Each structure stands twice: as structure tokens, then as C-alpha cells.
């Protein structure tokens, strides 16, 4: 978004004069929504960011959380929505590049990527092109840099037909003694490393801070990636950090050089002197204002002392990476930019990094009360038909078409792989052979578009459950809030409600939100489509022994299947209503934090004690879908009596398809059923013995009446092939 009149007069006041052209560009970049968080800062203060293991919270390029005493997990999420709408391949791939560099800034080694994709309907030809481009962009970039894409989520909805949401997250690990947490000092040198600076992505952050219009003019604002340079940056920086020749690193991301320099100087109350002519550029005739805001990819700013410089240079030269020493930090608290010896900008650093906070008006949109009110739900006439429809819904069906394009094995860490469990499990071989972490990302745009508070809170809850299901203890989350134009009160309302939902739920679950990102202006003006707002949550959990981690496929005929948690009639906003009745409304399931905590601790105990043989959380499509997925993945049948589901006020279709939060399905080894039930009794957890794993069909009964019988092979076929069929035609 270009600067407002108020902002322009504020700049005049700060400088006491008219800004130079270079200064105007710098303010536009740095004060863009994307870089400054001016419309979100006020609300983001609500998030609980502290915890006993949080070493670095929000504020730096990435946060860090302590694991296994001597290590830190560094992880962060980012959106690349605007660029992906214009150029899906380059938009998505540079999103991956950017988030990986954020992890590098703390000296960490990137070990996993996650992608959270909100895509259009595969049978829409334009949406189909976007889907292929986004996935190929992530695939080509992620594979080439050798960081496995291990988890995430993919959602398909008409509202993303011309405008996808592309959120990517990266997880890194670093020994605490190597974590780059130094303070830059006056006299330190500023070195720019990596790709040369070109005209791509000039004012890209400003482009991302307004709605998407007719896109013919936007293509220059999209950056183009070079994964080979990124891979060299990863290797070289890991090397340089372990050799101790780096003091501080910053990514040149949104806002380019302007943002990197202004944030460092503002944070540490320093000034800087920069000579733009020293920088390696792609084209000789680049003007200073282009250089200072270019968002060319694969560039990083390194702060190093004069003594460390030679060591750094020898590492960079070994990897054939280009670099330029462009200036130094001083104590003036003023950023002075020179171009060919001439002073072209002189800005107080604290002012550049401190835009005016925007508090937009908030108005509850009219449709909210009608959408989210309680529905009288129509009756499902054919349960098997409903189950088949759900299992083959692109939102539920196997995402193998997506994840098989990613090298999820590189790194020899991926213990629980895509498609096998509720979260990915990675071993941390730098700690020891069996220590590990779980990672997962979640979001539900149908929930958040109907009820943003509950929807966002439920995303936190679902991420928590997914991490628990594989046997980990959740330790921290990051969030990405994808919303519309904040200047429209009824759009801004969604944002404020989503922040509040995340904040409340995280606080209740006692899990810190250590970082995140906000993406506004997700609207496509050329199409007048509503882009559904969504909150995505990426979480990390720790696992002491990866050999105990759980997958979701049923293991042995004769084992018992338990349902953990009480089921309520909560079909509102659910997959059944959407797929079977084409209804996208109703009361979204209530977030139930205390139940999440209690049931989560029970499931973790079943896993720790060795009672569980497989675990799956209950989410889209309820118990019926959860159990069916377990059968499909394990190539087993199940014999279920729905009468044993702990419930309040449910009809048959609620027992099968309700999306009540806080529930799990657990396969328990036959000989330990009573022990498992005793633990539940001791903790006060509601558990029902649903049935027994069989070698036959999936059979749901209620007392003596058959409710639903289906052949596992038929469901398998539908589940495994639905998505690739709908994309490939």
C-alpha cells in the first residue's frame, strides 16, 4: 500500500524536510503493512509469547525454543499469498526460500519444511494451473536445497480459485552454544552475501500490502528464486557459524536492504553507513532507490567484526558465493546511505522502524450472525454414501499427489512420514539416536470464515492433538493470520477475532505463540471473489524416544479400538454438511481447551506405557472418517458399536460425523485393554470401547442394528485416488 497522506506528513516531520527519492522508497517499503505490522501490532500483543523454554520470542527473524537441554529448535511460518496468485511457481518457491533464510539467521540448520496450501477447486482450469504451479514451485525449490517437506495441510475451496493462500514453515535445529544471539556493535561490518541485487521484487512488500488488482502490472513485484544459491547459503552459513566468524545474520526479505538495516539499527540503537555502489548488482544501471528496496532472493546480511571478516571470506569463497562489504554500524542512530560517494538518504533509524500504528474500525459483518447460528441439520439418508463422499473429498482424501512431489526423506530423519501419522516425526541425530520432535500445521478456513474466533482456537487445538497423537509433548506454536483488507471494518473484524481465538486457546493450553506472521489484503479485486480468511498454526512437540512414536494405521486384528472424549452434536461448519448437503454454515464446534489437556495427557500416557498400537485424532468428518482412515492405512476392517461412544444429545449421524474437538481414536493392544481403561478412570477421562479390529469390512452398528457397512478396498481406492483423479483429470 502506498503511503497515506498522514504518513507522508509524518515523514516530513521526522526529517524536517522533504524526503529524497531514496528516502521515500525506504519509508514506503519499511512502513508497508508487510514489513511493519502497523495494522496488527496492537492486537498481536494479546498473544502469550513466554514460556520456560522460550529462548528467543517474536521480534527476531525467527524464534528459538530450548529442547533436550543443550539444543534449540528454531521455527517460523510465512505466507507468500500475493506472489503465488500472480506467479504460482515462483511465488511459492520463493516463499520456501524466504522462510529457510529466516531459520539460518539464528545459526540453525534447517531440517524440515511444512506447507499449508489453500487452493481452488481442481476441476476449475485456472485453479488447476495454480495448484500445479504452487506444488511444483515448492517441490523444485525444497528438493534442490535438500530440506525435506515433511508435513502440512492442503485445503480445496472455491474461494481460492483465483487466489491461493500459500503458507510455508521451516524448522531448524542448533546447539545452544552455537545459537546466534549476539549483539551487533558500532564498528562491526555489514556484509551482503549471496545472489546479486536485481530489479525483481522491487517494492514487493508494498505490492503485498494492497488487494490484488488486474495483475498485468504486478509481475515485476514477484521475485524469482535460485535454489542452488540458497543451498550454498545454507552450507556456507552453517560452516561460518560453526567456525565462529559471524556475529549476527539477517535475511534480506520483505523490504530488502532497507528493512534489514533499519531493524538491526533500531533494535540495538545503532546507526549505519552504507555505500550502495559496493554492492554486487545484476544490472549496472540500477538506481539507488531500486537497490535499497529490491527483494531479490537468496541474499543475506551478515554482521561481522573486522577480526572475523577474513574467516568469513574464506568460507564464502570456498562455496563460490558472491559477497560485498557495503558498510559498517556506528553509534549515530542514523542510517546514512551513499551512492557513488554521494549521500542519498539520512534517516533516524528508530523512526524508520517505527511506523504509525493503525487501529482500523471493527464491525461485525452482517453475514456472521446468520452463518454461525445453530442450524436444524437435515438428515443423512444413506450413511455409506455419505462416508464415501467424505473419504473422497479432496480435503479428506490422501494428499499423496502433493507430498510425493516432495523429497520428504532427505536428511535421514523422517521417522513418521507424510500419510502415515497425524504429524511428522523427525529424529534429532545431533542430540542422540532416539531423541526427536514432531511437527504439524493446521487450519480450517470453513471454520474461520463462519466463526473466526472458534475457527482459530480450533486450529490451535487440532495442532495440539496432532502433535499428541504421534506421541509428542507440544512445546510451542507459531501462527499465520491470513485476512482481508484491514481498512474495511468487517474484514478487519475477522483478523481481530482470529488473533483473540489463537491467544485464548494458546493461553488455555499453556503453549506459547513464539512467532508468526500476518497477511492482509488477501482479496482479488479483478474477480470480486471473497478469499476465506484462515489462521494456520504450526506446532512443535518433543519426543524422548522416537521408537515410541505412533502412526495411524491399524496394526493387529483383535486389538480394541477406543474413542477418547465425549461427542456432542456439532456438525456445524463440518465436512459432512459441506460435502453431503452443500451447506457451509452452522455453529462451529466449541473449542474445549480443558478437555484437550486432559484427553491429550491420557493419550500420551497410553503411548508412554506402550498400550497404544495406533492413534488418530478426530477432525474433519468425525469418528467415521477417522476410523476409516485407520482402516484404509492398515488394510484392516473394524467392527464398531456406536452405542459405546460417550456422548450427549447425539443422533446417529452426530456419532458418526460430528467434529467435536478434543477427541482421539486409539487402537489398544488386546491384552492391556483393562489397564488402559483403568488409567482413563483414574484421570477422569471419558472413554468408550468402540469395537475390535477385524480382517473384514468396516461395520458400524448401533446395538443390534447395522448402520453402515463398507468394503475397505473400495474405500481405499476412493481415498487414495480421489485427489490425483480430480487434479490430473
Amino acid at each position, binding site marked *: 500500500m502506498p503511503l497515506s497522506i498522514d504518513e507522508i506528513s509524518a515523514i516530513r516531520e521526522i526529517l524536517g524536510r522533504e524526503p529524497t527519492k531514496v528516502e521515500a522508497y525506504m519509508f514506503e517499503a519499511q512502513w508497508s503493512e508487510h514489513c511493519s505490522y502497523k495494522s496488527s501490532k496492537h492486537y498481536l500483543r494479546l498473544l502469550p509469547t513466554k514460556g520456560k523454554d522460550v529462548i528467543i520470542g517474536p521480534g527476531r527473524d525467527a524464534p528459538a525454543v530450548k529442547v533436550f537441554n543443550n539444543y534449540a529448535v528454531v521455527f517460523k511460518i510465512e505466507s507468500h499469498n500475493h506472489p503465488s496468485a500472480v506467479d504460482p511457481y515462483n511465488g511459492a518457491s520463493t516463499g520456501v526460500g524466504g522462510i529457510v533464510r529466516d531459520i539460518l539467521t539464528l545459526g540453525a540448520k534447517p531440517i524440515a519444511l511444512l506447507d499449508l496450501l489453500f487452493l481452488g477447486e481442481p476441476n476449475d482450469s485456472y485453479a488447476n494451473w495454480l495448484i500445479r504451479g504452487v506444488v511444483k514451485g515448492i517441490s523444485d525449490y525444497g528438493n534442490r536445497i535438500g530440506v525435506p517437506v515433511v508435513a502440512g495441510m492442503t485445503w480445496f475451496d472455491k474461494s481460492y480459485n483465483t487466489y491461493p493462500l500459500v503458507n510455508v514453515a521451516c524448522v531448524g535445529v542448533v546447539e545452544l552454544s552455537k545459537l546466534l544471539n549476539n549483539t551487533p556493535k558500532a564498528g562491526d561490518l555489514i556484509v551482503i552475501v549471496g545472489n546479486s541485487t536485481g530489479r525483481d521484487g522491487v517494492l514487493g512488500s508494498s505490492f503485498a500490502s494492497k488487494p490484488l488488482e488486474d495483475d498485468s502490472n504486478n509481475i515485476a513485484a514477484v521475485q524469482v528464486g535460485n535454489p*542452488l544459491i540458497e543451498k550454498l547459503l545454507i552450507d556456507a552459513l552453517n560452516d561460518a557459524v560453526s567456525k565462529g566468524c559471524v556475529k549476527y545474520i539477517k535475511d534480506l526479505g520483505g523490504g530488502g536492504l532497507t528493512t534489514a538495516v533499519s531493524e538491526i539499527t533500531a533494535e540495538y540503537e545503532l546507526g549505519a553507513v552504507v555505500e550502495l555502489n559496493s554492492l554486487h548488482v545484476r544490472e549496472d544501471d540500477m538506481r539507488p532507490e531500486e537497490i535499497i528496496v529490491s527483494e531479490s532472493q537468496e541474499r543475506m546480511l551478515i554482521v561481522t567484526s573486522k577480526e572475523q571478516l577474513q574467516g568469513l571470506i574464506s568460507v564464502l569463497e570456498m562455496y*563460490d558465493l558472491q559477497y560485498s562489504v557495503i558498510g559498517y554500524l556506528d553509534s549515530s542512530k542514523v542510517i546514512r546511505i551513499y551512492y557513488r560517494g554521494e549521500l542519498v538518504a539520512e534517516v533516524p533509524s528508530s523512526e524508520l522502524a517505527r511506523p504509525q500504528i493503525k487501529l482500523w474500525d471493527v464491525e461485525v459483518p452482517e453475514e456472521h450472525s446468520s452463518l454461525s447460528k445453530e442450524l436444524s441439520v437435515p438428515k443423512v439418508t444413506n450413511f455409506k454414501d455419505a462416508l464415501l463422499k467424505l473419504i473422497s473429498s479432496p480435503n479428506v482424501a490422501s494428499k499423496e499427489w502433493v507430498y510425493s512431489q516432495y523429497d520428504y526423506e532427505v536428511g535421514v530423519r523422517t521417522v513418521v512420514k507424510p500419510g502415515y501419522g497425524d504429524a511428522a516425526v523427525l529424529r534429532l541425530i545431533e542430540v542422540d539416536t532416539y531423541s526427536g520432535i514432531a511437527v504439524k500445521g493446521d487450519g480450517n478456513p470453513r471454520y474461520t470464515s463462519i466463526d473466526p474466533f472458534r475457527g482459530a482456537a480450533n486450529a490451535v487445538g487440532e495442532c495440539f492433538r496432532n502433535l499428541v497423537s504421534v506421541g509428542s509433548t507440544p512445546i510451542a506454536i507459531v501462527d499465520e493470520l491470513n485476512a482481508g483488507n484491514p481498512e474495511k471494518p468487517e474484514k478487519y473484524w475477522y483478523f481481530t477475532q482470529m488473533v483473540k481465538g489463537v491467544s485464548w486457546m494458546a493461553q488455555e493450553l499453556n503453549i506459547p505463540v513464539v512467532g508468526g506472521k500476518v497477511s492482509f489484503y488477501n482479496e482479488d479485486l479483478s474477480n470480486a471473489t471473497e478469499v476465506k480468511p484462515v489462521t494456520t498454526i504450526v506446532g512443535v512437540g518433543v519426543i524422548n524416544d522416537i521408537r515410541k512414536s505412533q502412526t495411524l494405521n491399524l496394526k493387529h486384528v483383535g486389538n480394541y479400538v477406543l474413542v477418547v472424549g465425549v461427542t456432542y452434536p456439532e456438525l456445524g461448519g463440518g465436512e459432512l454438511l459441506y460435502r453431503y448437503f452443500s451447506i457451509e454454515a452452522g455453529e462451529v464446534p466449541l473449542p474445549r481447551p480443558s478437555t484437550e489437556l486432559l484427553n491429550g495427557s491420557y493419550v500420551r500416557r497410553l503411548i508412554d506405557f506402550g498400550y497404544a498400537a495406533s492413534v488418530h485424532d478426530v477432525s474433519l468428518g468425525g469418528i467415521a472418517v477417522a476410523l476409516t482412515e485407520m482402516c484404509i492405512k492398515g488394510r484392516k476392517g473394524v467392527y464398531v458399536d456406536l452405542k459405546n461412544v460417550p456422548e450427549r444429545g447425539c443422533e446417529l449421524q452426530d456419532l458418526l460425523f460430528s467434529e467435536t474437538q478434543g477427541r482421539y481414536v486409539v487402537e489398544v493392544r488386546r491384552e492391556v485393554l483393562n489397564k488402559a481403561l483403568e488409567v482413563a478412570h483414574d484421570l477422569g477421562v471419558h472413554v468408550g470401547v468402540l469395537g475390535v479390529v477385524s480382517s473384514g469390512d468396516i461395520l458400524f452398528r448401533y446395538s443390534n442394528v447395522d448402520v453402515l457397512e463398507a468394503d475397505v478396498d473400495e474405500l481405499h481406492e476412493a481415498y487414495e485416488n480421489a485427489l490425483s483423479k480430480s487434479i490430473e483429470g
Partner: protein
Amino acid sequence: MIKFPGTNADLDVVWVLRNVVSLDASVVWFKEFKGKSYDAIVLPGGFSYGDWLRAGAIAARSKVIDEVIDASSNGVPILGICNGFQILTEAGLLPGALITNDSGKFLCKWVKVRVKRPRGPWLKLAYDDMTVDMPIAHGEGRYYIDSEVEHSPVIKYYGHNPNGSLFDIAGIASNDGLVMGLMPHPERAAEPELVPTGYTAGGLVVWRSLATSLKEGW
């Protein structure tokens, strides 16, 4: 392990050699490689030079490959995995070529392969028709050759050919088995913790064969 710009599975192979079969192993940057100092050479997977031009094409024309060819003529076992296999075919050390998968897409998946006519340092402990599970992860893994391989050791996709390789070929070795190329990744299938339900740690046979061969010959 020879590391080119863009090689990304170097440390994975080192991990397995050191921790699973207790061999000493190190990563050597391609500019610093001297062939005479090593008992065996692995060209690990990744995207050397970003796969520009064709997978493996640029690395195959770098000076270090002359050293590798020298080493092979001196009887040093050489294994190329994935991108390493692509480099070996580009360099002419192994026959055939690897072209884009018939799906046109990158594919990461666990597969079953069968070993035919095993011999040499990399397959010493394998037996004929042994079924081995390993994951593949490549975009250019479709093996192309004029006629069926009659004499050298080969490794063939078993049950399902994932990329349209001719004669189902997933890997091939020189006649004496000294130089071998594999599209599947044996280093990713060498520890039980990393093996998904329904598969076994098939890659182990390659690393155990090497460890035994280096001690006892082959």
C-alpha cells in the same frame, strides 16, 4: 563422499557409514578431492549445480570426475546414488541415460527392487533375485538404454515401475560390479527407525557388502 554445489545427501551417507556399519567416512568438497586417498568413493544424491542443463551434466564434466575415472581403473569401488548415478551415466562410467520420469513429476516413494546377478563390492552379500526395499526421490530417474542388460549386475523395480524406466531398471553396475549407480537411496533404508510399515531396511545390504568387501575383498 564427493560434494558438489547442490549435493544434499552427503551427510546422510556419512551418518550411515559411521553409525550403521562403522566405517570411517568424510565429505570432500569437489575442488579438494584427490582420488588416491580413499578405499571407496560415493557420489551422493542431490542436485549438483541445481540440475541445470540436465541432471548431473555439469558435475560430470568437472575435473574431479577424471580423478574418479582414474580411481575406478585402479580398482576403487564407486557408487553413485540418485544424482550420483546421473553423474556416472553422464560421465560415461555407466551405460544408459536417466531422463524425466514418465509422469513428468518428481516422485518420492518407497519401492521394492530386485537384485540380478549380484557381484562386486556393493552387492557382495546380496543374492540373485533378492528383493530389497528402498525409497526413491527423483524427477529424472527414467532409465533409458538401447537393449536389455544381459551380463552386468542390475537392480530392477519389482511389482511396480514408478517412472517408466526401460526394462524396469533402477540401478546398474559395471560388469565386475566395481562401479554401481542406483536411483533408490540405500542410505535412507539402512535403519529400522526410518522404515515405514510394510517395508524392510533394504539398503543395509549395500553398506554391509561394502564393509565386508573392504575387509575381505570381493
